[in-house]
């Protein structure tokens, strides 16, 4: 008969806690670490205002490109824009 079946386990758990649990740094020691890490965290994240500005520029550029393509696609039906007429191509140049 084992009079204390739970005792070895409790002892083992207590030993584990004593052996593994540590509180090596005080609150005072954590404070400067926290400040440095927090500053780095904020600096490393993309600025949301700047992010939206870049997003706005990208949207405007896309719209402008689409508008140019749309105009150039519609324009031939109306009539092509004549920039100039080639009159004669001769020996290395245009006249």
């Amino acid at each position, binding site marked *: 008969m084992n009079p204390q079946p739970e005792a*070895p*386990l409790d002892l*083992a*758990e207590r*030993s*584990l*806690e*004593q*052996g*593994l*649990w*540590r*509180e*090596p*740094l005080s609150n005072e*020691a*954590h404070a*400067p*670490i*926290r400040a*440095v*890490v*927090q500053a*780095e*965290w*904020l600096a*490393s*994240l993309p600025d*949301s205002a700047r992010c939206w500005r870049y997003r706005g520029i990208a949207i405007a550029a896309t719209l402008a490109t689409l508008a140019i393509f749309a105009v150039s696609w519609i324009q031939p039906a109306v009539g092509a824009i004549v920039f100039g007429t080639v009159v004669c191509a001769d020996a290395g140049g245009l006249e």
Partner: protein
Amino acid sequence: MLARDPRAFDAFFSAYARRLAAFVSRRSNLSPAGLEDVVQNSLLKAVRSLSSFRGDAALYTWLCAICRHELVSLHRKVTRQPAQDSLDSASSVRDTVLELRVPAEFEPPNELALEEHRGGIAQTLNGLPERYARALEWKYGDGFSVQQIARMLGLSTIAAQSLLARAREAFKAGWRGEQPQ
């Protein structure tokens, strides 16, 4: 945290900074100043590369991996330094002495006994399968709940409980072997 939520940072720091310090303390004999450096550098690296964290591993496991790299590179740096006797070399002795004095509630003989006890525990844990040792460290060293351990290991709560029970049994067997008869 990626949304610049200060509450998220608070939760992150209060959940992991102490645990990382304990993690480093269990794996090194660094002075408090050295320990602070390792913890700070690890956390800095973590917040810088937070966007690259894919969530495949638990956040704590990821932080521990960063911390382990930091310890390894510190160890390499120390071993690369030329072995010279100078006045500065006495600082390691001074650090050890300071470390012994840090917990004011302990007398040095008690502290030494505690260190010896910790050494025995570490030796027993090193003899266990890695999964057991890790689960016991998370439970008794880091204070994670069974549910948290289950999440970190990708197990159900019942499976994590069962793993912890088996790990405790294995530890008990090993610990009995370590104890003087």
